[in-house]
Each structure stands twice: as structure tokens, then as C-alpha cells.
């Protein structure tokens, strides 16, 4: 439905299209308001764009009521009711949930605050999120990240902020989220450098046959 406003026709209602910072090759379609690549890889090592997932940054007293309710300390993560809660800094959390759920997650967090001073901000659009999955995931990651990726130091659920290909990146060891029984890492960085990080990881994974894959937007990718 188009209408005249001034001298040109503009739509009566706009249909916004959201786009990830990461370009994955392949045919594209709009799913849940996001223009995404429909390419799905079944290679032994996959790098998929998970940017459409809702991301909420939370700040609160590291020893307060919300910290207690979230139950996740700095440098670890866990999954509850389909939401991945990451302890990304002292008194700082990142919550990752299904596409479009950011407002709902932020409200839930405020509900848990019990009078604490809490800030929950939707950073869905501010962060690029990607997932590296496969038997050789840690070997590929170890080419661009100096952190010890062994089970002893960074077991399932470990979360850390470090330099990946010289870019400040938050990494979560999240095999469970991949749901394939393989090692899997979620990596998120500033949206503006998402494509850079994606390409660096593809480059590092080349010797392991890494393939890019489009976003999983059904919420299962968190």
C-alpha cells in the first residue's frame, strides 16, 4: 500500500529488513525479518553466522541479587530455558536468546533484579555472533587465539574475552549449543568487525576444510 507524501510515493507501512554484518555466500531469503543466506554446510568444520539471535548486555553488582539469580560467574556460562547466560566480565553478562526475544529477555532480567541497580540493553544489533563447530574447531581457533583451549583450562561453558586475530572477542565454549556432540565455540565481537573476524576464522580453518554457513534463525543456534 503506497501513499503520496509530498511529491513521491512512499510505502504506507515500511517493511524493515535486518541484515547481519556477516556476508555468507549463497542464495538469500528473508526469515523472521532477517535477510539471510540459506546455505547450510555439512562440512566437518563449519563457521555459521548466528548474528540474528537476540543479545542483551546486562550490568549489575557482581555479588548482588541478579548475579545470584543468574547463577553465572565471570568466565563461565550456562543455558537456562533456551537462553545462554554468559559471564563476560565482573558484573557483566551477555544473554543470548532466540531471534526477536531481546525485549522479553531484558524485561525478565529487570524482573530478577529485586531492587538492585541493573542495566539491561539490547545489543543484538551491536554485536556480530558466529559459531565455529567441528572436531578441529579448537585447532583452527588456536591459529588466531593464544588462550589454552584444552578441556582442563577452557571446558564446556568456559567464557573469556581475548584477542582473536588481534580483535577483542568474547569466546564461549558451547558444545551443547551446537547440539552435535562436537566441540563448538561461539564468538562475538563488535558488529563493525564481524566480517573481518568471520574471514579470519575461515582463513584459519582452511586447512581443516571449513565452510561458511548461513544463520540459524529458529532460536536453536544459541
Amino acid at each position, binding site marked *: 500500500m503506497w501513499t503520496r*507524501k*509530498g*511529491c*513521491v510515493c*512512499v510505502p504506507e*507501512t*515500511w*517493511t*524493515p*529488513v*535486518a*541484515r*547481519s*554484518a556477516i556476508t555468507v555466500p549463497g542464495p538469500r531469503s528473508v526469515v523472521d525479518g*532477517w535477510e539471510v543466506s540459506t546455505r547450510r554446510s555439512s562440512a566437518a568444520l563449519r563457521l555459521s553466522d548466528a*548474528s*540474528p539471535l537476540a543479545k542483551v*548486555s546486562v*550490568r549489575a553488582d557482581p555479588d548482588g541479587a541478579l548475579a545470584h539469580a543468574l547463577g553465572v560467574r565471570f568466565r563461565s556460562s550456562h543455558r537456562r530455558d533456551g537462553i545462554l547466560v554468559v559471564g563476560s566480565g565482573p558484573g557483566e553478562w551477555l544473554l543470548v536468546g532466540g531471534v526477536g526475544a531481546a525485549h522479553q529477555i531484558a524485561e525478565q532480567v529487570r524482573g530478577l533484579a529485586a531492587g538492585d*541497580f541493573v*542495566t539491561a*540493553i*539490547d*545489543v*543484538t*544489533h*551491536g*554485536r556480530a555472533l558466529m559459531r565455529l563447530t567441528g572436531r578441529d574447531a579448537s*585447532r583452527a581457533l*588456536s*591459529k*588466531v*587465539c*593464544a*588462550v*589454552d*583451549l*584444552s578441556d582442563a*583450562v577452557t571446558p564446556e561453558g568456559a567464557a573469556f574475552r581475548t584477542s582473536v*586475530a*588481534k*580483535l577483542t572477542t568474547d569466546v564461549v565454549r558451547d558444545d551443547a549449543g551446537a547440539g552435535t556432540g562436537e566441540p563448538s565455540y561461539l564468538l562475538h565481537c*563488535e*558488529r*563493525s*568487525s564481524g*566480517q*573481518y*573476524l568471520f574471514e*579470519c576464522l575461515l*582463513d*584459519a580453518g*582452511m*586447512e581443516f576444510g571449513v565452510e561458511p554457513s548461513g544463520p540459524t534463525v529458529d532460536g536453536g543456534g544459541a
Partner: protein
Amino acid sequence: MIGTASRRLPAQTGELVDRSRPLTFRWDGRDYEGLQGDTIVSALLAGGVDVFSRSFKYSRPRGVLSATFVDPGCTVQVDAEPNVRAAHRRLAAGMDVRPQNVWPSLRFDVKAANGLVGRFLTAGFYYKTFIKPQRLWPAYQQVLSRFASGGVTSRQNVHGYYDKRYVHVDVVVAGAGPAGLAAAVAAADAGCSVLLVEEEYELGGHLRYSGEASLSMLSELRAQVAARPSIEVMTDSVVTGRYDDNWVAVMQRDVGGAIERLVKVRAGVLVAAPGLIERPYVFAGNDLPGVMLSTAVRRLINLYAVKPGERAVVLTANADGDAAAADLTRVGVDVVRVLDGRAGETIRRATGRGRLQAVELEDGTVLPADLLVTATGWTAPTSLINMAGDRPVWNPTAARFVPSGDGLPPTVLATGGLVGDGSTEELIAHGRAVGALAGDRAEGRAGGSVPELAGEPHPAMFRASTHGFVDFSEDVSSKDVVAAAKEGYDSSELVKRFTTATMGPSQGKLETINTIAVLSEATGRGIEDLGTTVWRPPYAPISLGALAGRVFEPTRVSPMQSWHEEHGAVPLLAGQWIRPDHYGAAAEEARNVRENVGIIDVTPLGKLALSGPDVPKLLNLVYVNKWSKLAVGSVRYGVMCAEDGVVMDDGVTGRLDEHRYLMSTTSSGAATVWEWLENWLQTAHTDWQVHVTPVTTAYASINVAGPKSRQLMQRVVEGVDLSTEAFGYMKVRQGRIAGVDDCVMWRIGFTGELSYEMHVPASYGLHVWEALLEAGDDLGIQAFGVEAQRILRLEKGHLIVAQDTDGLTRAHSAGLGGMVKLDKDDFAGKPELAWHERDALATAPRLVALQPEDPSAVPPEASQIITADGGILGRITSSRMSPTLGHGICLAQVDPAVAAPGTVVTIRLPSGSDITATVREDLAFVDPEGVRLRA
């Protein structure tokens, strides 16, 4: 012509070559055939070639000596790659192999004339001769470069692919001979992760070429390694250095698509198991092609099935020499004489023109031969333990330097030939014990004991009665060492530096002991007194590409970058951000903003979400102006100064609701301001309830500017009254833009026009950008880039922090004195700014606008403003041609003496000529009253 394989032996047990896979390659312009599994050198030897290079100084023909990576005569050029170690590098089909450091050819090299005058080219000749007169150095350099070795690289070479890898492991074992293999297995069995690094292409060390019994022990050890998934094996790789806290550098070759990979290893325990390197013997003619070490002969026969000669003399002082003689006899070489060094037998010299032809014995007997094999002792490569703090000591019984055992941290251990001698079983037992100990130490346990591995008695044979080369890489002879000692260079470190012995590509692995032994002979001091030189990293050569690895330079782009690229934007690199500088014609873009409406992508603008009841306190602290009364729905411009009163950043902050603010910073200052705020909150004011969340990239930021911008906004904005009365200058609103919720828009005007800066959730940035262009088509909308924005803001007289200010510019010198509110309780920089206002105002520089008198003049930025006698009064900080006004416009930092409006100043241009300009009343050239932006 294909070289004939006349020297290829029938199949040998344990050979590495695959006779079903012949490979064709080129050597020195001719075609040759080798086998899969050959090294370049073994294939060439099999094809009848035995000269591979010319030596560094005297240009003497050189062939195989050790048949290992360090073989000094086997460095060649392969395709575009110089300095390939041809006795190590596996042959590949189609390789174009050429000799290097020859002129004009390998067969005839004019530099060989040096040999004729060799007695004048003694050690130090170069240092002494070419130092004077200094003005002739360019000429010397021209000639000397002909003599420098090192192959050729082309500027046309494509940059190779190199990368890095980080490894964290409990135990690193450097060397995979019998002791190293056993150590790796034992450490794995102790529950450790193990990295086993081997310089050769296969595991096994000398077991690979030492007969069937050794091979069966080797296959058992290899099976044990293969059965343990906790052992990672790297072959064709070398531990090049050990640094503090067991930071171990491993150079891995030809892996994962990379030419070389630097592996940065953090190891719990390092086990050094490098084995032994066979030491050459010093005698006249010891560098003739055809003179080889016993281990070279055994490698060539057993690994590559190459017959190293037809008629051999063997000088042996140990079991390996005996075994080499036996190998030669077995494959049909005529061994004409075996001399036993243990019984005091030796040789006098080797003779031949370009190749060995005869061996002269001490009694004068001359034996025609094309192969002379020596087995006169060993060098223990103590590099890694040396780097870990051990100073090796001379073991006179074994006639080699061995680890002292003192000075090593508990996390560095040694095993195998490096430590002592023994049967293969004893070496394996030692390796196993050391591996178990390494495992214990890596796991924090005390660990058990390790059996003794003593040095076996070995005759001390270094030099025959004649003089020969001690350093084949650098062409240093024993005579040079003796001469150096006579000149007073009588310590091992001095003689090394003066003669350059041990400083060539093989880095002392073959040369060190002979050099010290000859020095000992010349000085009469014992080898144990002289000591060995210090081995430093890297143990093996590393290419610069490998040290660099992948080139990681993070870049940042806005959500609209694809549109900019499709529309011909000329990129501007601003820090890490890639921004559109312009889309073809910046002045035209600027004019369009003044006349119609333009949009610019200002996503890099720093943005911080501030929340909490104490935000006003924070704003009052970090900004010089007042913030207590900022109403919901309003924005205010603020200036931040550091504690010294120097301007550090500026921007606007808007109050979105009671406890929620959005702060904008300069694009380059985003990270600094975030840290600045967190620093105050985390140190000085931990009690304040404020959270700072960086949201720079959460929003795509678009500035809509121009007289028609309201019209445009009305077409895309929903739920916000855009009338002047409802949404005035310096106000902020939240609403829906082109169907996108949660957008923030504020009315500010960096360009001096009516303008709206919108911050939309970044994923919708491109959607909103395209919607604006579509909706504004009939309004003459055009995108404009950073350059147009710079022109526009300069016309309006808006300063840019760090361009119109510098590291000394306090607020008053930036024309911002009026904003400084000294009646506030406190704020960052207050004491300095108070002093500045009270005592320094009269002398501090001022920011002024200048108009060149010549309307066509646009003085380059940084041009100086000078006095009549050339003294400096200031400088131009910003300068452009104004498309709106048709003349040059400038901002300048000037001395207060010339800051008064109407003053005419002289500007010195970089060309040296001067122009004049007038100081203006106001910083703004266009619309100083602000009518347009308040429209």
C-alpha cells in the same frame, strides 16, 4: 637430457624412495629424474651430479658432506625460493633447481681466482681492507655484493602464505630419535599431552639407517607413538628456541597450506633430545666433493639407495665409521683401505681437481679414490639446554661438550646422545625414564630417578698434520684460526667474531669443536679452559614471513558499507574504520546539503549508553559545562578536558528518559572516553550508580542535513511531531523510522544546516539508508562523504578535537572558554583551567578563523603564521575552499597578539612564499547567527 640413474642401488631395507613414482625436475638448466622420497641432493647424486655449490669466499666446488639440513655445500635456489637446504628438502616434480652464488656458472666461476690469492685473503682481510677510505665504500659494496651468498629473490614474487599456531602442552620433546620417541611415549603414559618435534621428515633419527635390528626397534617405537592420541607429532619441524617460562618456538615447514608456520608453544616440561651431529675432520682437501662423513654415507645408501662412490678410503674412530665401511662393502663399493683412528691411524691429505681423486696417507702412500669417509667424532647440539641456562662442559673422554647439568630449571630435561652414549636399548631406557620424569614434573609430582648415560671413550681427533677447513660455510681454515690466535684473538668468543668461524648458515653445528680444538692447539690452552661459544636462538633458520605470520589488521565498517562501495565511494581509512571520503565530487555534495538535503553515514561516531540515577554527577565530572538541569528530551553539547585542562573530546549527550542517556563522542575518541568514564567510576566514585555500555556499533548513525531535511523526515518518521515547536534545536526524540522501532533522533547541526542525527538499530541501517534515498528522491537528496562534512563544518566554524586542538590546547585556547563553569563543585581539569583563566589567558594561543585575502588561496593545513622577521605566531589547523562562499576558509591557532578581529597575518606556505589573511570576527563563515540550523 634426462640424467641417468647410474648410481641408484637396488632396493635397500628401510629405503625412503618409492621406485614406482619417478619425478622429473631441472638442475642448472637440464632435466633430471629422481624418485618420490628423494631429497634434491640424493636425486642429483643418483643422477651423477656431485657438485652443488661454490663456497663463500674461495668459490671452491662443494658437494655432500653431512647429507643433512646443515650440509654447508648443498644450499640451492628452488624456483623463486633461495637458500633451500637441498640435502634435506624433499624432491617434488617440476622443481627448477639452480645453483646459487655462482658467477657466471657452477662449472666455471671467476671468483675461484680468490683461491689463488688465498694467502692474502686471511681472516680479517675484509674488515681491514674495506674500511678506508670511507668514500670508496659504495664502489666496494658493488663488487662485494657479487661475492655475497644467498641466492636471489625477485620483487615480482607473490607474498607467500605463512601463519602461526598456539599450542599449550604438558611436554614438548625436541627430537624423535630412539630416546626422544621413548620419552614421548613415557610422558604420554604418565597422563600428559605431548608434542613430539622432529627435524627430519620421519621419526627415528639414526635408527632409520642403522640396519635391520634398528629398524625393527624403530617400528615398535613408532607403533607406540601412533597408539597414543595424546602425542601430537610434527615432522619436518624444528624447535628453534626455548625462552623464559618454557615458551618454546617451533618452526613447522610446509603445513596446512603455509610455507612455514611458527608454532608458539607453552610447555610444562621441555625434553631436549636432539641426538648428535657428526663432526668433520680437518685436513688439506677436506672440502673436496667426495669427502663425506660416515653418517652421510649411511643415509645415502640406506635411506635413498644411492651409491656414494666407487672406490673408497674410510677413516674410522668409532662404531658408526665401522658400520659405514660395512655398508659400502655390502653395496659393492671398493673399500681400498680402512684406517682405524682408535689405533692412531690417520690420513695426511685429500687431493683432486674439483673432485676427490686420491688420498695421501701419513706414510706418503697415495691411494686413488673417489670417496673418503671420515668418522672422527661428534658434536652434541647443546643449543636448547644452553638457552635454558646450562653452560656445557668439555668431556675429554667422549671428546665433545656435554650438558653440565647445572643451571637448568626443573622444567627442562635432556636425553639421548646429547647426554651420553649407549646401546639403542640404553638410549631408549634413558628416554623412557626422562619422559616419565617430565610427565611427573608437568603434573607437579616429584618424579623418579634417571639412569646414567655416560660418555663412551672416543679418541680426540680434530686435525691431521695438514691444514684444512674448520668452517665450510664461511671458508675459514685452521690456518686462519692459528693466525687469529697469533694476532691475539685467543678466546673462543673472540676467534669466532674475528674469523667468522661458526657464524655461517650451519651456525657452529659442524664447526664449533674443530675451531676450539685448533685454537687450543695454537694457544696451548686446554679445550676445557677455552669453553664453547654460547648457542643462541634460533637453532634453525626462520623466514621473516613465518615471524610475521598472517597479517591481521582489524577493520571496521558500517552497516551501509556495501551501499557505499556500490556507489563509488572513495574509501578513507580513519583509524580502523573504512569510511566514504566522497562519492566523486565533495564540493558538489557540500553544495547540495546547503541547497537541498544530504545524508551522511556517521556510524563511527562513538556512542555510550549511560544509565542510572547518578549519570548527571558523572556528566558534571567529565564535562567542563553543567548537566544537572538537562531535561528529558534535550541534548547538550559538552567538552571533556583531561586533568591538565587539555581538551580530550567533545560531543553531545541526550537524556532519553529519567535515568537513561545516550552520549556521543568523536569517532576516534570512542574507546578513550569509555575507558575514561569507567576509570572514574571504578576508582574515584565506586558508590555512584551508573552503568556505561558501549553501543557505537549497536546503532547505524545517519545525519540528515539541509533545508529540506524536515520534509524528508516527515516521510519516514512515525510517532514523532517534527514541527519546530515540538522538536526544536538540541532536542532528542525516540520513535520509528521507515518502520524500524527503537530509533533515537536528535536535532543538532555539525554542518550548520537544519539537521537530524538518527541512530537506528544497526542491522536496519541499510534499510533506513535506502528508505531515506527513496523518499528524498524528488528533494534532490544525495549522500555526502567525510570530505563534504569537513567543508561544511569549517564553513560553520565548528572545531574538530585533535585537528584544531593539540596535546597542549586547553579549553580557552579552543574558543571553548565560555563553556567552562568554574562555579561547579568539581570536574576533571578544574584546577588547571582555573589557573589558566586567572593567569595564562593573556599569553595562551587562541583559535581564530582566517580569511585569505586572495580568494583563490587555500593554504595547506599546518602552514605557519609568521612575524615579519620569520618568527612563528601560529599555524593553520583547518583549511578548505568554501563552495558556498567561493573563497578559502581557515581555522588557526595563533598567538594572542594577532588574535584580534581584523588583524592581518602572514602565512608562510610550504613553497616558501607568503600570503596574507585577515582574522575574522567569528569562527563561523556561514550563518554565524545559527538561523539555518534552528530553522
